[in-house]
Structure formats: C-alpha cells, structure tokens
C-alpha cells in the first residue's frame, strides 16, 4: 500500500528515523490513523518510509525505482526483502530499522531496537507472536465468545514517548497548530490494531476486542512487556515530582504507569529536557515478553444451605497451621462447583455464620460463592439443578437449595440486614436447680428483652471490646425434665445466644441464669431461620 503521508510529514519522519524510531512509531507521530498502515508487514513500512524521505533528498518523483518495486513488482520486492532479512539474521535476531546515514543517504541496515516502543511494535506485532498468544488461550480451553486483548507496557515508555514528542514538537506544530501530544497514536492502540485481527484468525475467527466495559466482554487475555535495561529512565521523575511517587503499602515499585504519566504532565518541558536525553538513548536490547495471562471474570453462585452436623465448621478451621475437623460447609459446596466451572479458586460468603457445633435447619442460611477465573461460565437452569443435586449427594452433613447464578451486585442483598433482621434459634438448656413446668413459663411472657452483651470472651481475641445492646423479641419453652428444657428464641441478628444462656462470666446482662435464678448452660443450639429474603427461591 501507499502510506498516506503528506509533504509536511517529511521533516518529522526524517528526524524520527535519525533518532532511532522504528517505522511504526514514526507513523504514530505522523498521527496516521489508518489502521491498515500499521498492519502491513513491518519491513514494507520501513522501506516505504525510506523511499519517502529519499524522494526529497534525491529529488526523484513518486515513481522512483524503490517505489516502483514496492508497488508494482511484489515478487521482486519479496526477494529483496528476503535477502535483507537473511543479512540481518546472520548478525542476530533483530528487526530492521531504516537508518539515515551521516552522508545523508538512507538505506536499510541492521540497527538497534526502537528508542520509543523498545521493540514492542517491531518484534511482537506479527503472526509468530499472535500464534504464541493463541496457543496459550487454546491450551487453557476457555468457553467464550468475545475476548479482550489487553497489553501492559513498561512505564518508561511514557518517558521515552514524551522525549520523542519534544524532539519533533516544532515540526508537528508547523504541520498543524491543532495537533497535540494526545493526538499521537498510542503504542497500545497500534499494537491492538495489528494483533487483534491476527489473534482472531489464529483462534478461528472469535471476536477479539478492546475493553470498553460491556457486560459481554468477560474474558481477557493480557500480554505484558518489561525492559529492565531502561527501568531507570523513570527515576529522575522522583526528584522532579516527588509527590507523584509516595510509597504505597501494596506496591513494591512506586514507578507505576499512572504515577509516571502524572509526573510527566507536571514537569515543564525545560526541566524534562535538562534531566532526560532528547531524543532518547538507543537501547541495546528489546523488550521481554511476560507470560500470557488469561482471566475470565468471576461467576457468582448463590443459594441457601442447611448444616446438619455438630462437628462441621462453616469454613476450614485452622489453629497454629494445623487443621481441626475435616471438611467444612464451604468446601462441601465449593468442590463440585469448582470442577464444573473449572475455576481457579473461590471466595465464600454468607449471611452470618454458625459455630461448628450449631446446626442450621429450616430454610437454611443464604450464601454466595465467587468462582475465580472460571474456564466455563455458562450453565442453564437444568445444569444448575444437576449441580445442586451433585452437592447434595456428596454429603449428608449439608443440603443446598435455591442454587442459582447471580450478578456481583446482587451479592449485596445477602449482607443487608445482617444487623437488623431477626433470627430464630432453638436451644437445649440445662438448669442446675431442679425445675418444673411452671418455673419456665414466665419466659414466654418476656417480650423485647434488652440485653447488654460485652464482646464474648470466645471471640474477644479477634473483635474489639464493646458492649452491644441486643433484643430478644420472644421466647417459648418446651419442658423436658427437671433439669432440661427447650428454649426457642426470636432475636435481633447478632445476639450471642450461648452467652445469653450461660452468662459468659456475667458479661451478658441479663442472662438466663439471672432470669431463672440458677446456673444454666446450653447443651445444643440450632439456627431455625435466617430471615433474609435473598436469594429468591428456585421452583423445584
């Protein structure tokens, strides 16, 4: 193809080529938005650019020998390129960069890596790299319609880009006063224009797109590049703009792409030119490609569970690195889901939790499971029902109902009302003094009993020490024998039932010992209902 370059691009092209810019970066700084110009083989673009500037220098017309070969005689062009390539390969594995020699004439020579993109648009924008990406995606066997291709570039690219911009700013302004640095085509965009089509072809035509935050784009493949040789390019910015680089807890490196871009925006051109070479220095090596990362957005599965065992914790119970009790509610639920969704992990959450020795009966407790990086994400209702069946077949210690796929947002409903909803419990009570039926009936008349509960000693090691006011709405009793009765309680969520019964060293006031004027203890506890209306019931 003919590169749609104008006469006033010529000084820009010349200056950038002299500075060691690669052919595609030259196009970017010429504000060329024609995507096909980037997609054509790199060598073709390099040759055309050389021809473009040689036109002027030798004062030949558009149908010069080179142009003639490039446009009208493809076979011979190919031969010529092949010889050039062979020459290069003999010297090493580097790309062709058009170089302007000191005599003023331009020719194709083996040259260094691009001073701006550090090789990203030279070495990693071809079918070979597209094949590499596709092979990783294929090996992981994801189920998807659309894939987002994202690219992560070394932060110093912004510094080098800015240096190059300052290098040709004058020439750009001559071309048009309206053009600014923001109008320079981004390395990222050029990369995607070239690679999206190539990767799509390798993957048999799936749609490969740029992320614009739509619901349909759930699968992302990330490629990344580093260039250790020039990492120190950014360091001068810390002195020039220290407030952009405050160390944060989680980040080992303060020179993030965001921080570097922000700092460049703040530093004046004069200061920048004093501290950083313009044009940038020529690197000795190209970028290093990082591993290709595939990530599917999480899928959320919700439902309600019953727990019928008094020796099953809700989550794995680990003390001093040693596991207590085998299995747990979350593991029993998660295991079949992990294998069916082929997920890499999960996060379990629920509307409250019960102790290991407490059963959860009735309609069960709402829960949700975030499945991380699922390789399969689509299941129909029948398949979900089958999954629920698989979970229920796997153990008689738990039972799951209303299993369904939900949105991330819907998860919020589960935590709503954790404090203000009511919960119903059933407890088996022991009394030290012998009782008869009439001794406990007064509990049924006790309504809206206010408790002051200090943080129970059993959780005080991991919770702040406070006094919480909680309400027991109603109680009912069922007499068993002189030392035992069943107590059913409807309470405000967050009431500690065990502590209400035994008193927790008198730290819950009043407690059942106070009410019955004898020592009482709790032998068994069941959650009878968790009054949260989420997730919605699934008809059988």
């Amino acid at each position, binding site marked *: 193809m003919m590169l749609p370059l104008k006469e006033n691009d010529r000084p820009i092209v010349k200056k950038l080529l002299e500075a060691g810019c690669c052919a595609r970066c030259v196009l970017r700084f010429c504000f060329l938005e024609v995507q096909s110009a980037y997609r054509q083989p790199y060598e073709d673009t390099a040759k055309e650019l050389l021809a473009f500037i040689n036109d002027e220098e030798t004062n030949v017309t558009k149908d010069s020998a080179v142009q003639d070969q490039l446009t009208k005689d493809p076979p011979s062009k190919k031969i010529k390129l092949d010889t050039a390539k062979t020459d290069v390969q003999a010297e090493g594995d580097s790309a062709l960069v058009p170089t302007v020699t000191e005599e003023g004439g331009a020719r194709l020579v083996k040259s260094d890596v691009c001073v701006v993109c550090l090789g990203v648009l030279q070495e990693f924008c071809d079918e070979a790299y597209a094949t590499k990406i596709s092979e990783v995606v294929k090996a992981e066997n994801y189920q998807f319609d659309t894939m987002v291709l994202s690219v992560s570039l070394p932060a110093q690219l912004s510094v080098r880009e800015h240096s190059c911009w300052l290098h040709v700013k004058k020439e750009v302004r001559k071309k048009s006063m309206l053009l600014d640095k923001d109008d320079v085509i981004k390395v990222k965009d050029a990369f995607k224009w070239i690679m999206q089509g190539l990767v799509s072809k390798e993957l048999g035509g799936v749609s490969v797109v740029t992320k614009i935050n739509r619901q349909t784009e759930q699968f992302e493949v990330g490629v990344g590049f580093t260039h250790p040789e020039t990492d120190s390019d950014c360091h001068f910015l810390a002195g020039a703009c220290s407030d952009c680089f405050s160390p944060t807890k989680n980040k080992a490196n303060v020179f993030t792409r965001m921080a570097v871009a922000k700092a460049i925006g703040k530093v004046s051109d004069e200061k920048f030119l004093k501290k950083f070479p313009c044009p940038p220095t020529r690197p000795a090596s190209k970028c290093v490609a990082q591993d290709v990362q595939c990530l599917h957005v999480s899928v959320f599965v919700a439902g309600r569970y019953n727990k019928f065992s008094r020796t099953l914790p809700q989550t794995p119970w680990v003390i001093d690195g040693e596991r207590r009790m085998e299995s747990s509610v979350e593991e029993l639920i998660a295991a079949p889901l992990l294998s069916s969704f082929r997920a890499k992990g999960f996060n379990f959450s629920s509307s409250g939790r019960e102790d290991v020795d407490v059963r959860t009966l009735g309609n069960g407790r709402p829960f949700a499971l975030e499945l991380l990086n699922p390789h399969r994400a689509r299941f129909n209702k029948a398949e979900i029902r089958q999954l629920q069946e698989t979970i229920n077949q796997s153990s008689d210690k738990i039972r799951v109902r209303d299993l369904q796929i939900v949105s991330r947002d819907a998860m919020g409903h589960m935590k709503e009302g954790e404090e203000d909803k009511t919960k119903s419990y059933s407890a088996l009570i022991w009394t030290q003094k012998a009782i008869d039926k009439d001794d406990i009936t007064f509990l049924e008349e006790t309504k809206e009993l206010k408790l002051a509960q200090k943080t129970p000693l059993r959780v005080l090691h*991991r919770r702040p020490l406070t006094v919480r006011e909680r309400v027991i709405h109603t109680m009912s009793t069922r007499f068993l*024998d002189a030392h035992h009765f069943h107590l059913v309680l409807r309470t405000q969520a967050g009431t500690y039932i065990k502590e209400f019964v035994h008193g927790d*060293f008198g730290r819950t006031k009043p407690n059942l010992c106070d009410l019955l004027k004898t020592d009482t203890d709790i032998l068994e506890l069941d959650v009878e209902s968790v009054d949260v209306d989420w997730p919605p019931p699934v008809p059988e």
Partner: protein
Amino acid sequence: MEDLDHNKAPSVIDRYYTRWYKTDIKGKNCEDQCVLQHSNRICVITLAESHPILQNGNTIKSINYQISAGCSRLQNKVSGKSKRGGQFLTELAPLCRITCTEGVEYTIYSCIRGRLLEVNEGILERPELLLEKPSTEGYIAVILPKLEESKTVTNGLLSREEYENILSKRTSSTQQGPKTEPEPC
C-alpha cells in the same frame, strides 16, 4: 438430646478453658490464684478455691482496683481488634486489693504476662459475687497474652493436678502440726 442425664455435662469452663494455678503467691501462705486460659489464648484471672478470702465464711469490705497513687486498673481502656492502649502486665503486677471485714488486706496479682483487657466492675457493686461465684461472675480480670507468648505464658504455673497435689499435702501437713515455713511453689 440422647443424654438427658441430670448430672451436669462438662461446664463452660471445662469445655473451653484450661485451669492453671499459682500458689502461695509472693510467699504468702495459701494465697492461691487461678488462671483460666481459653483456647483462643484469652485468660481470665480468678481466686483459687483455696484462697484465704474464700475460707472461714469471710465477708468482703472493699475491693480496690487503684493499685497505687498513679495507677488504677479501672482506667484501663482498649480499642480496636488489636486492643490498643491496654496496660501491659507482668506476672507479679497487682490487679486489685481486697479487704475483708476482719481488716486483712489481700493483693491479687496478674500471674501471667499480657495486656489487660478488662477488670470486673461487677464485683465492685456486688462484692458477694467474689465469694459466691469466684470462678465465674466473681472473676478479677481478663488478660490477653502476646500471640508469640501464648504457648509459654503459663510455663511457671501449676496444672490442675499439681495444684490438687499441693492442696492434699497442705491438708496432711496441717494434720501433722502447724507449719511456719510457706509451701515451696
């Protein structure tokens, strides 16, 4: 459910706490204390049943958490999950002084190293709790040992069995005759 035996099943303390003892604290005869250590490392400090306060139908005249002019355990405040701001106690830090009607004053000690979480203000209003329920509602204080010391913090203390051995030796020695020297710990 299957076991509706009238005999009490293991109590809350039996189920969740380990009992540790320190006897003849500071060489004072029979001034014994108990440390109830929860499986989560929290410790509740109480009088041991052999402490003189709990003998001979004593009554309590006063309980004072002001252990010196500048330091009151009542001033102790902790905040947040990490319990910032709690007074740090060593084994022989006094927690409070208890005066009986006979005018005898006893000092109750921490017995373990750790951060003071709370003292029992309930016994200030109802000192009789100390006598009636010394190991539950009549507790003295709650202490949180350092995480890295949670295993070693009870090293110098006696197990329940060792404590009972000491009690039975005391009984036999009093039967043999009065003793002037305090029991070695």
